[in-house]
């Protein structure tokens, strides 16, 4: 591909100068002509992760003292993506460490003795998915789900948003973390979800991506986070709820993943036909897709992703934006169809084996280029991955670069067949018993039989949808060859499907059919 610099139209500004400097730096890491030589340094990255886990983190990570579950999650899931299992002793120590961060009033904190917060709650629960199991010492039964639900409800605001912690801010990342956890642990209720889709929709900006929060004050007559809690009430539909902040990769992933997680709820509790149910809320999915693909850098930037318009490429957006493309595709319904593409122009651009790629590849971003960015610019020579050269590696970028690499190698999409199989094996009473096990107490109770049926449908829909994501056969592509393969990761949770399946099955009380049952035996 051509290596033109980003055009500056003979008009330099701070942004274009910074862009140019970055292109000069990244250019030096251009992949070799023979891409088969590009190697993922699995051993070095494994050692980087192992050092952090066993020996601990150097002092500069004091900035992460309030994010300790994240350090654990980034490391553990990093191992899972690299295909490394953990010994029982490490698992046990991890479970003990995580439980020391569970808050007595529910949820998990950034560290022992700190206050509970939605972000570390996600990181802790996902870490439990990797190392935990049911039963004594397994961690899963030690998660206080009833108190967690109460904690979630105590953060709820009338505009459908949630504070990230008491006295904390509203942030789309927190909403994603809450929804992912509530999905995994079977804590979703209409009470918890009321107003959430409407809130998310207000966070989409004119660019198509999402920002961190919207302003509720004009529609709800107050926006004081200290006093405005509770269920949504009627509000002024005509009043603006403007997005605060510009479209951004992290928030866009969180909003899009939340939107996908909410689909079963939206289907059941809203109506496009009028009547007593509220009208279906909407986002501009085409604009979302456009924004995501516009964030992919030029060939001179090796096709890495940016997090905002006119900002620089950065390895972590490989996941936040690269990983978001499949969510936009899913919402647009383009993952379900495989009709022929008018391919005639491929003949002419087929000098370097381009064709085999195109045939395997239904994805709407450039999977090959993204892999090249991560492999050539994202890997630190001493192990671990990074934002971009010449920056050092760190735990956060190591996970989100490897997760981005995974998203570029594997195409994991919702499978209708899998969803049907899961639904046909659904045991309503067990799901119900599991969900109810979090109260006797004050938590949500449906007020009528009809409400109870709806709730059962909701649980089934949420479970089956979350379980339905599967890798599409024959679509994996590996720059540098199959030796560079990493494991697939679930686009909604960023866990391997083995880990998310395990946790979901337990907390919904289900024994879903095997993912591999209907495939021909390979013996």
């Amino acid at each position: 591909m051509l290596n033109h610099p980003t055009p500056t139209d003979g008009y330099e500004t701070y942004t274009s100068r910074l862009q140019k400097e970055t292109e000069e730096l990244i250019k030096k890491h251009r992949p070799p002509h023979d891409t088969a030589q590009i190697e993922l340094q699995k051993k070095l990255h494994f050692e980087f992760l192992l050092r952090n886990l066993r020996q601990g983190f150097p002092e500069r990570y004091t900035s992460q003292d309030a994010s300790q579950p994240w350090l654990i999650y980034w490391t553990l899931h990093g191992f899972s993506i690299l295909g490394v299992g953990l010994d029982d002793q490490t698992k046990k120590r991890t479970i003990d460490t995580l439980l020391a961060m569970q808050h007595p009033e529910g949820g998990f904190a950034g560290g022992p003795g700190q206050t509970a917060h939605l972000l570390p709650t996600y990181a802790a629960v996902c870490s439990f998915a990797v190392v935990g199991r049911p039963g004594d010492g397994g961690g899963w039964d030690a998660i206080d789900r009833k108190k967690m639900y109460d904690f979630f409800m105590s953060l709820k605001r009338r505009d459908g948003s949630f504070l990230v912690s008491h006295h904390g801010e509203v942030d789309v990342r927190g909403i994603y973390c809450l929804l992912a956890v509530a999905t995994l642990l079977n804590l979703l209720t209409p009470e918890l979800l009321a107003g959430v889709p409407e809130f998310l929709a207000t966070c989409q900006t004119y660019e198509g991506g999402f920002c961190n929060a919207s302003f509720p004050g004009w529609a709800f007559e107050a926006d004081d986070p200290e006093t405005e809690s509770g269920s949504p009430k009627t509000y002024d539909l005509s009043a603006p709820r403007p997005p605060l902040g510009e479209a951004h990769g992290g928030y866009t992933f969180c909003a899009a993943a939340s939107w996908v997680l909410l689909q079963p709820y939206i289907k059941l509790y809203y109506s496009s036909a009028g009547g007593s149910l509220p009208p279906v809320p909407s986002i501009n999915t085409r604009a979302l897709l456009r924004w995501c693909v516009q964030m992919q850098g030029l060939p001179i930037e090796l096709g890495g992703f940016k997090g905002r318009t006119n900002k620089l490429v950065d390895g972590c957006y490989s996941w936040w934006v690269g990983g978001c493309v499949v969510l936009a595709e899913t919402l647009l319904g383009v993952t379900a169809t495989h009709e022929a593409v008018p391919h005639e122009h491929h003949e002419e651009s087929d000098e370097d084996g381009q064709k085999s790629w195109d045939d395997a590849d239904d994805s709407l971003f450039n999977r090959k280029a993204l892999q090249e960015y991560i492999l050539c610019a994202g890997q630190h020579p001493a192990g671990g991955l990074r934002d971009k050269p010449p920056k050092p590696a760190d735990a956060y970028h190591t996970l989100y670069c490897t997760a981005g690499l995974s998203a570029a190698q594997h195409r994991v999409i919702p499978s209708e067949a899998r969803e049907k199989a899961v639904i046909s094996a659904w045991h309503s009473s067990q799901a119900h018993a599991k969900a109810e096990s979090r109260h006797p107490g004050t938590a949500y109770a449906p007020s009528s039989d009809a409400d109870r049926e709806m709730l059962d449908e909701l649980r089934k829909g949420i479970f089956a949808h979350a379980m339905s994501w599967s890798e599409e056969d024959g679509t994996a592509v590996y720059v540098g060859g199959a030796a560079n393969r990493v494991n697939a990761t679930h686009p909604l949770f960023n866990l391997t499907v083995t880990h998310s399946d395990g946790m979901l099955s337990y907390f919904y009380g289900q024994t879903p059919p095997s993912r591999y049952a209907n495939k021909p035996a390979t013996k």
Partner: protein
Amino acid sequence: MSELLADDPEWADVVPIRQYENVNPIAPIFYSEEYKDATDYFRGVLKTGEMSPRVLQLTERIIRMNPAHYTAWQHRYKTVISLKIPLEEELELMNEIATTFLKTYQVWHHRRLLLTALTSIDAAARELEFLKTVLRADAKNYHTWSFRQWILAHFNDEERLWAGERAYIEDLLEQDVRNNSAWHHRFFVVFSSGIRLGDEDRDQMLRRELSFVKEKIALAPNNPSAWNYLRGALEHTNTPFSTLTTFVELYTTSQPPSRGRDEDVVDLDNPPPSAGAQLPAVAALEFLADIYEKEGGDASAKAVEIWKSLANEKDVIRKKYWEYRIRDALSKA
């Protein structure tokens, strides 16, 4: 305060609490002695619920070592309120911390809580000025912008707060026309947040915005921030893209129109690309294809031609996306 609280008689009555009591933690952080000492005492203070002047000092000590310690911020806020510390004083005290740690969420959220409690337009106006100094150091700081927008909406005073924003944005875009945060801020002020004083005539407002963004496109035609603003303005006002065909076509040809020929005929609605423009601009081609797609019929073929040239030549990194646009348009035709 002396170096360690453990050596300070003033803290002798507090029982410090170690972070991990009976656990050998996985993935531990190697804290400095000072940090360990301060957070041990902080856990002790949290347990008793103490809110006192020395606790204010302790939270500041922790925040300076780790500004992302949200629990320290939370307890500091509760203590400020409980001790009835003048909120203006606290804001003032936090100015230096804000400028030092401007990339930290908590820094800005704390100020938001203080301003909410202050309920003073004067304080809000001063805060907008303070944020200008912060944005001078980092013109794209996400949280600072988000906070600025919240102040404008929350206090919502046309003359004291909103009135200065457009001129401020124009200054910033004068300095860097590619500053997407400034473009977003303009959209927030002009379109997303109701009707500004003086903008009651919506047609006039839209004309002003279109001519503003077209001038900026002319200056640097390959600036996605300006094109996104243009698209956003049109979509927000339900204005068809096709109303800008003449303008856009100036940017889809390979050559800037030769200058000097019709110097006396200045078309203000359609400012031509600058002399240094690198044409055709990809964003202009995309825009023109959108016009053709919408027009439908025979024009669809022209849209497909443009998408093909983007896919195979002018924007190859997005080949898959442009091919999707072709597929999508053909399936609807």
